[in-house]
């Protein structure tokens, strides 16, 4: 099921976003090809989360365009003028883009299985049986085949984040967004989540991962995007970025974080 039209899966063109008076994204242009794994690095407050949230229109962009599968996200082009798309249309795009949050955001009133089944049943319209099979399979895939009936409060942070990944995967997305998926975890639990992310990358999933895990970025990503102050400062393959960063800002950043 590949897009017949050639071109990148995701494209951002001169995206600007401001909150009040502060401009958080100041002209982001980037593209991601099918199957690519991109790691976004940058200091806290540089706009990484905002960038991810603009991709699936959780935040409205102020100017510029986001194109997913060649189509405008969140807006319709009415003779050159952009008007916000109807909610159902935005929801359909979001259903094809998985998102994993720093704080998991699991639904606490549902079991692991319930969390993963919820959107396939109510968004995709799968029967409960189909959804249950699919959910059990993805939970198995993230190593939680024995925790189907556990509630989030009964799971460790690492397990919860793996449920959250499974919840996104059950929608069979074409793109996965990870926003510091391991930052809220105790150090000993980071590995199990990164392992799942590595497996996904190896299986050919298109991924954009905001991360502070330099090891993961160096090994799993094909490309590093380094952001600071709402601008992409540098874009390079990991080998090049980590050994010979082109900008002074990136060098400073790398001095402060542990290198891979």
């Amino acid at each position: 099921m590949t897009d017949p039209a050639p071109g990148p899966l995701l494209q951002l063109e001169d995206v600007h976003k401001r909150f009040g008076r502060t401009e958080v994204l100041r002209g982001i242009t980037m593209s991601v090809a099918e199957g690519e794994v991109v790691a976004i690095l940058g200091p806290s407050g540089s706009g990484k989360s905002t960038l991810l949230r603009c991709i699936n229109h959780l935040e409205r962009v102020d100017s510029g365009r986001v194109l997913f599968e060649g189509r405008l996200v969140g807006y319709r082009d009415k003779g050159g003028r952009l008007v916000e798309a109807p909610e159902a249309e935005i929801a359909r795009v979001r259903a094809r883009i998985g998102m994993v949050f720093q704080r998991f955001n699991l639904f606490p009133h549902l079991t692991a299985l319930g969390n993963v089944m919820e959107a396939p049943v109510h968004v995709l319209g799968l029967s409960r049986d189909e959804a249950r099979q699919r959910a059990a399979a993805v939970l198995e895939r993230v190593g939680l085949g024995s925790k189907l009936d556990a509630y989030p409060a009964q799971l460790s942070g690492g397990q919860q984040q793996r449920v959250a990944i499974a919840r996104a995967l059950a929608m069979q997305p074409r793109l996965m967004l990870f926003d510091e998926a391991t930052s809220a975890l105790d150090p000993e639990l980071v590995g199990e989540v990164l392992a799942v992310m590595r497996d996904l990358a190896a299986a050919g999933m298109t991924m954009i991962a905001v991360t502070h895990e330099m090891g993961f970025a160096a090994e799993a990503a094909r490309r590093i995007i380094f952001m600071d102050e709402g601008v992409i400062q540098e874009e390079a393959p990991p080998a090049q970025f980590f050994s010979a960063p082109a900008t002074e800002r990136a060098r400073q950043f790398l001095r402060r974080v542990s290198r891979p």
Partner: protein
Amino acid sequence: MPALAVDWTYIAQNFFSEIVLRGVWMTLQLSVIGMALGILLGTLFALARVSRQPVLRGASLGYIWFFRGTPLLVQIVFWYFALPQAWPSWAPWNGQLSPFQTGILALAINEGAYMTEIVRAGIQSVDPGQMEAARALGMTHRLAMRRIILPQALRVIIPPTGNEFIAMLKNSSLVSLISVRELFLVAKLQYSSTLLYFEWLIIASGWYLILTTIGSVFQFWLEHRYGAASFGPGAGRRWLSFGAKE
């Protein structure tokens, strides 16, 4: 010591009399139906209150402002006497709505204003990350509200709703003013003709206490089942059986 001149035998003879039981039944109907409609109205206006539409938010605010800000007694009289007079052309008011129905309407619309604030507080108590996660999965606002936000908001909504119901049991006595024969009006008619004030007020109060006690026990049970602590082990299972088809 002079004995208190209360005829306990009379009280005992009349406590379960048909006329009293009819009044109790009327009070129960007013309270349960009024409360159910009040919860429905409160939920709708709370959803309006947290929506992105300024018009809906404004309508909700205006509703709360008016119906919380004026006495229930005045509202009851307004619906029954004033509105039909001022607006006779509107069919439902043309003597078509019985005192009982008008009483329920008045109680429900008043209760809805309080429930709006309670449901709103419940919705806003849910971590915004829940809505984000739901929307990121492709849920519309409405679906996310129904499946994700409201079930979690119940924890916060249930305890004050129990208090509202108990208040409703007592406030329903105000519709005696438009001649709905609920518990208080029954007692009033009786003490007016027999002049046994004390006896009839004891009968009425006794029944109010019975009803509110049952209400409190129900509230206690609900809170422990759905309202209490967080979604710990076991708690979640009970949540599931509450709303889901699972």
